[in-house]
Structures are given as C-alpha cells and as structure tokens.
C-alpha cells in the first residue's frame, strides 16, 4: 500500500462511517426530520423574513389571537387599564377551540397588556374576559353583573 494513499483510504472510511451512521435506524429519522428538513426549509424561510411573520410561524394561534385581542383594545383606546381574564386551557379544550391561552407573563410578552387567570387573587379586578360565545371566541367587557358568572365558570376548569 502506497503511503500517500492511506489518508485517502481513511477519507473513504470517514465517508462510509457517516453514510452508514446517518442511514441507520433512528439516526436516519433524526437526520431527515431535524437536520435536512431544517436546511431544506431555509430557502422558503428566506421569503418570510419579517419578524412578525416569523412570530406567527413559530407561535401560531396562541400568538395570533392574543395579538388580535390587544389590537382590538388598542383600536378602541381601552388598552391602558385593561386586565384581561384568560380562559383555562381545559375550558378551551372542552369547547374545542384551537387556542392555548398564554399565561400572564407570556401574554404580556406577546402584547404588552396585562392578563390574569380566574384562580389568582386579583382575578376580581379583571375588566375584560375572553369567552367562547356563539361558536366563536370573543372579548367581552366585564362588569358587576357578569364578572362573577364568568369567574365561577372558569374556576371549574384547570389552567394547566
């Protein structure tokens, strides 16, 4: 064996190891789904470089609905003192609406607005609530007449 050809044989060995490894059992599945797909999505993703588009792609309906709620309140100039009562996750599952309500810190991150869960101590101070009405998710203003009803309904379900 020529001394100079040995590194070449090792190079071939390296390629063989890599090819066999990445085609073996679960490694093939991992490589295809986690690595190759990540790279193949690259060119598509270049078409959606706007940060807002990237947020929508990543966070989905949880972000879109939160964003729209905040926008609706801002448009009505009612955002400054708004404290929004969030529905429990279990409640959303029961009504079969595809929305995972974000916890208050995450909602604040998405929108810059305050929210609260029905089981928390300041829940009585909520002046808006997200409820499922007429086959849709709606933002309703809370007052002394409807607050107790909404709170007691939400408190029947688990948030996490």
């Amino acid at each position, binding site marked *: *064996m*020529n*001394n100079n050809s*040995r*590194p*070449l044989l*090792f*190079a071939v*060995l*390296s*390629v063989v*190891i*890599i090819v066999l*490894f*990445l085609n073996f*059992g*679960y*490694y093939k599945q*991992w*490589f295809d789904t*986690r*690595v190759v797909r*990540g*790279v193949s999505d*690259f060119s598509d*993703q270049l078409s959606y470089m706007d*940060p807002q588009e*990237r*947020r929508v*792609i*990543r*966070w989905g309906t949880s972000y879109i609905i939160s964003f729209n709620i905040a926008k609706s309140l801002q448009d009505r100039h009612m955002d400054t003192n708004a404290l929004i009562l969030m529905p429990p996750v279990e409640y959303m599952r029961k009504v079969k609406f595809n929305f995972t309500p*974000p*916890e*208050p*810190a*995450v909602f*604040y*991150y998405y929108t810059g607005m*305050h*929210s*609260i*869960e029905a089981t*928390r*101590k*300041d829940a009585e101070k909520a002046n808006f609530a997200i409820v499922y009405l007429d086959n849709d998710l709606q933002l309703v203003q809370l007052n002394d007449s409807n607050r107790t009803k909404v709170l007691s309904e939400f408190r029947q379900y688990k*948030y*996490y």
Partner: protein
Amino acid sequence: MAIAGFIFLIAAHYLCGAGLLALFAIKLPSVKHNALAIIAGIVVVSFVPFLLQLGYVPITLTSVAAGIVVLCLLLNITRIKNFNLAALRDIRLLPRFKSYEVPFLIIFAFILFSSIWRSFYFPPNARDMLSGPEVIAEYTVKEHTMLNSVLSVNLESTNNHLKPPFVSGLQIVYKFFGFEFGQVWVGILAIAFCVFLYQSLRERVHPVLAGTLTLLFLAIPEVYAYTYIMLFDYSNMVLFFIGVYFLFEYFKSGRRNEFYFASVMLAFSVFVRLETLVLVGMLLPAFWLYAVRKKVSLKHVALQSIVMVGAGFILYFLWLNVYVKHYMPGNLSVVAKDVNHNLSDLSPLFTRFSDMNGQLLFGKYATALWAYFINIFLAVFILDLIISRKISKESRNWLYAVAVVYFGLPFLGYLLPLMDLMNTTKRGLFKLMPFLVLIMANTGLLQRLSAKMYSWETAPDSQPANKARTVKQPVKSRGKAKATR
C-alpha cells in the same frame, strides 16, 4: 446592524474569553483555545447587563457596549502589557486538518448550520423562556432596566423571572446589537463546544474515531434540539463539562491554574442553573482523593475546596440573596417553598432514581431522547471491560463525573420538588453525554484501535503495518500506544 453587531459580539466573546484564559495561563492548541475562548466569552458577556443593573446604570446600547469593552480590557490587561507584535506572525489563520477529517467537518458544518439558522430565524419558544428571561430581556431593551414592567404582571403561575440572569443577559445584549430574537448565541455556543469536544477527542484517538464519536454526540436527538432551542440546560452542560475537564487536567498535571480555571467554569455553570452548586459540591471527594494521593497539604486542600465550591456560591448568593432579595420588588423569594421540608421520607428519591432509569435512560422514551447513544456507550464500555479487564485512570475520573450527575440529579429532584422528571431531570441528563463520549475515547478498545490506525497510516511503504517501527502519534496517546505494542 445585525452583521456589524455579530462581528462585534464574536470579537467580544473571543477577546473576553481569551483574556480569561490568559489570566489563568491556560495553554491549549489554537483551535481548541479559540473555541474555549468563545465559550468563556459568551458567559463573560452575559454578566454585563446584570452588573449594570446592580449599579443601577440604565441599560442602553451605549452602556452595554461600554460595559463589554471595559470587561474586555480588564480581562486583557496582562495580554496588553505583554503584547508582542512579533508573535502575531506565528498566528495561523486557518487550522490544519488531515484530508480524511474533511468529510466529518462537512457533516458537522451541515448539522450545525441547521442549528444556527434556526436559532437566528425563529423567536424563542420554550415556555420557561417566554415567561422569564426572554420577556424580561424584551422589556429591558424597551425600558432600560431589568426591574421593568414585567414584574408588575401577575407572576403567580411562574418562577422563571427568578432564574439567574445568564440567558436574560445574553438576550439583552443580542437584541441591542440587532438580533430581533436574540438567541443566536445558542448556535454559536453549540458550534464552539462541538469544536472543543472534537479537538479534545482528537488528542486521545485517531481523527476518524474522534469524528465518529463527535457525530455520535451531535446526533443525540434531545441534546441536538437544544442547539437551537434557547434554554439553560445546553449551556449548563457545556460549562459543567469544561469545569470537570479542567479539574481532571489538573489531576494529571498538578498545575493549580487549571484547578482555579476549572472552579471558574464550574461557577459559571452554577450561574446558568443554580442547583448545579450541589453537583459541584459532589465533585469535592474526587479532589480530596487526588489530594491524599499527591500528599497535598491540608492548608491547600482546604483553600482549594473553598475556592471550588465558593466561586459558584458567590454567584448563587449574588443572584438569590442580593439581587432577588434586595433589588426585586415584593416578596419574590421562592427558596423556602421550593425546598422539600420532609427529608426523612426518602421515597421521592428512590422514585425519581427509578423513573430516571426506567423511563428516561432505558425506558420507553430512551430512543426518542438519546437515539442509540446509551446503547453504543454500554456496548463499547462492557466490551472493553471484557477484553481489557481494566478501566484506565482517565476513564475512572470520567466515571466519577458520570456518578455525580447520575446520582446527583435524583437527589436534586428529591431536594427540590419543582425539578420534575420530564423537564428538569431529563435535560439535566445532558450533562452525562459528553462524559460518556470521553469514557468511550479512553477505553483500551478504542485506544488500541487508534494506535493501530496511526501505526498503519505512518508505516513505511514496503513494511507491513503491524511491523512498523516508526509511529507518529499525538503526544497524549503515544504512551498508551507503546504500552499496547
């Protein structure tokens, strides 16, 4: 802005890290040195917003940039003093690799490109980030203080805002320098660690084996996912590994600078996840055993033990007992309610240990989490025990580190009930993985195979490989190769 910011931050990471390495007189081959400098520099830069906040300095682009420059200068004082222009001529810009390493380098680049792109493109997604470090960072950039309006939100459902400021610090810095979602540092850290690990393996085994082992590590599905998902655990794994690595280097060389550097890196790992302090404490017996063998004076043993745990404890104390207690508004201390007060009941400890093994490491989730990594490790390790019938000194050290994590994580789960199985313990297991790679590299089996590969590669043309007398190998594997011949 992002490109200029990226160049500035990479330079800042490198210079801060290289300055830190120079302060501890850590000498390494250039590629490994640069990778370690970037890793250490990432942590150093993460301190900047926190330090500014401690001094109530408004956190703006200018103050953050000035803070980074000042830290960089402070860490490089000795290097600036001893600056030698002639030494610049010796700097090699491109590292040298053997031709057969290229296929591995290409596949690593491909795999890690996917990581860095995703860490750049997507916003952070992990719930622990969005309800803690990320939201704090976002509003710090807007309001110029880490004590911002996020703390006025109802935070009863989370304690993530109380997690140490490593991630939030880096997010603040990267957002200021033009990265909408920060997070790119996650990919940079992963690349630097991959380079460090590969180079460390290359010092012990033939590059083809080093490449295979690095690929094996990179392809651990759950660990790989956190090369682009921002969370604490990948960084914690990297820093804990490097701390342990230099502790064991100290055991070999006896150079105290390596011990002190190890202590700093372990302290950094505590800065990422505070409970790591318990694992650092569990490393002490290994040091004491070394001290007894080497007849280190009691005074030094006491001093070094204090430094090893004390460095991490200072950061722990600074965050929880200074910042959370005195800077954060209201009664946000969680320590009392987070600790298990019924320590006499050991059943949660055994349950966690059993679940960790039965579900995560060897059970129904094992393949999805680690692919075949654990199986391959066990196969190599057991085969080596059967064939070699001994465990090398270096492997014994790494096995001790494995034991610290393996027994330490269930213990932490028992001590801190908030550390659940499917999140905290699962991701805590990341810390096992680089140790297992190093154990494999140090088995007699791979050492002999490596020696044979070197021997065959460098044997003269006319001589059969097994009779070759001239063997060129890296310094660290020469001794073992001779012994095996």
